[in-house]
């Protein structure tokens, strides 16, 4: 008998092992859902897949009776826009701060400890401050996401810049580059793929802040909708919305990875690593 840690599943087995827990979860859900629905056809807690499908189609294709909007697409668009603006703003700020702090010792002396402290501030705790400062409009929600992800990305990039071999910075100087040109031609191009990686890692937190902000102060958005529907125990809408958000998050992660591979073919295959 071979040791457990040496056993490699072959392809069909690998697929089966992946599908088994998924199937188990679906079957369990169906069993409980059927049992509850058999007892009470009006049950809202574990709706049938057909009910969820109907609700989703209604949200996506029938205009809302009050506003005339297609709520599903409105929510998706608004939420994605907030996410993009927040993460974009946060990442840009973080790029500037992180690279400055990592490359320029004089900047790092003040930025590095400051970032370490700011990163410890719980972003949701300052949501009230953001709401007071920026109002309950779009800006506060975008700022919450930006404030939430920026310190993490900045510290990550600072570390990545410091990880660049000292030899490269010396080399750049012997090839005629000063601070500015080293930043522009040596540091920045090598940091951009790492920025994309850092954004991917911070997307989970960004979604959290988005949904929190929408739950607290909003009139549309994916997070707003599920918290609104919670009052009516409308699991037939909440569950598909959660699945949709999961899908969106997965797609964003995949797109960023693909973009990284496309834009930076050298990344991951560096010399001497």
């Amino acid at each position: 008998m071979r040791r457990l840690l040496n056993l490699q599943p072959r392809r069909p087995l690998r697929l089966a092992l992946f599908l088994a827990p998924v199937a188990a979860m679906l079957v369990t859900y169906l069993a409980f859902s059927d049992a509850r629905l058999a007892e009470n056809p009006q049950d809202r807690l574990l709706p049938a897949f057909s009910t969820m499908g109907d609700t989703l189609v209604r949200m996506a294709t029938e205009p809302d009776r009050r506003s005339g909007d297609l709520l599903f697409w409105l929510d998706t668009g608004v939420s994605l826009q907030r996410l993009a603006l927040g993460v974009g703003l946060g990442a840009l700020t973080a790029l500037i701060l992180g690279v400055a702090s990592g490359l320029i010792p004089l900047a790092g002396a003040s930025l590095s400890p400051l970032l370490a402290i700011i990163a410890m501030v719980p972003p949701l705790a300052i949501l009230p401050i953001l709401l007071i400062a920026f109002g309950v409009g779009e800006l506060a929600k975008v700022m919450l996401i930006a404030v939430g992800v920026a310190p993490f990305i900045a510290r990550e990039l600072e570390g990545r810049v410091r990880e660049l071999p000292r030899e490269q910075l010396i080399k750049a100087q012997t090839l005629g580059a000063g601070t500015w040109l080293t930043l522009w031609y040596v540091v920045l191009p090598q940091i951009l793929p790492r920025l994309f990686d850092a954004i991917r890692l911070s997307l989970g937190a960004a979604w959290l802040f988005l949904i929190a902000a929408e739950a607290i102060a909003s009139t549309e958005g994916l997070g707003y909708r599920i918290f609104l529907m919670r009052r009516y125990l409308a699991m037939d809408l909440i569950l598909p919305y959660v699945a949709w958000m999961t899908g969106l998050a997965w797609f964003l992660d995949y797109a960023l990875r693909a973009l990284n591979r496309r834009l930076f073919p050298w990344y991951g295959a560096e010399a001497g690593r």
Partner: protein
Amino acid sequence: MSELTLKNVGMRYGDTVVLERLNLTLTPGTFCAVVGASGAGKSTFLKLLLSELTPTEGSITLGGRPLPREPGPERGVVYQRYSVFPHLTALDNVCFGLERTQGDALFGRTWGRKRRALRAEASALLEAVGLAAAAKRYPGALSGGMQQRLALAQTLALKPELLLLDEPFGALDPGNKQAAHALLRQLWAERGMTVVMVTHDLSEAFTLGTRVLVLDKVREDPHNPERFGASITYDLPVDRSAPPGAASIPHAS
């Protein structure tokens, strides 16, 4: 071409003396190999010549002028690792120095005819080190030997007065090492720059160098080993007119 002179140079970190009383004059075109045990201060010696470190005592002059306080294009360097930029193709790596020194201060790059001339020059250099076919490849896709040849081309593009080599072939297998030696010797013969090569490989030092320096401690304090630093204990001229391999290696006691 300019002369490199060290006068009574010493380097200490706090109470730890690494190098002391280095006196040396390298005539232009010398190929100086520096050997010594690990921890004898070889790397520190090279960092001093690069201005990555400033000597705590004494002075270094290049061509009669004090050594610039920061690394610059008058001195080129090839390291054992991390010598080329991983995010640039082989051709762009060679263009790097030409672009930065010939471009404007803001953008550090060139356009139009100047750019084409510069790329042609870089291509010729790549050809000279046998990498013409790999011009569009990234360093990650090159072998160790190819990367070091690329690093040589990249550094020589700016025609430095002083070429500093830090164990440049230390990670290569014997075959690649010999090929790299032949290439380096040829480039040195063609261009006549002064070379300082730090190595722990004695035979490499005597095959390539016209002058071999040995760094070691002259004085020892058994109770305080950090009190004295290494100095030049042997300064051996190597006769290049003799056939390779015939140079006699004196025994150090």
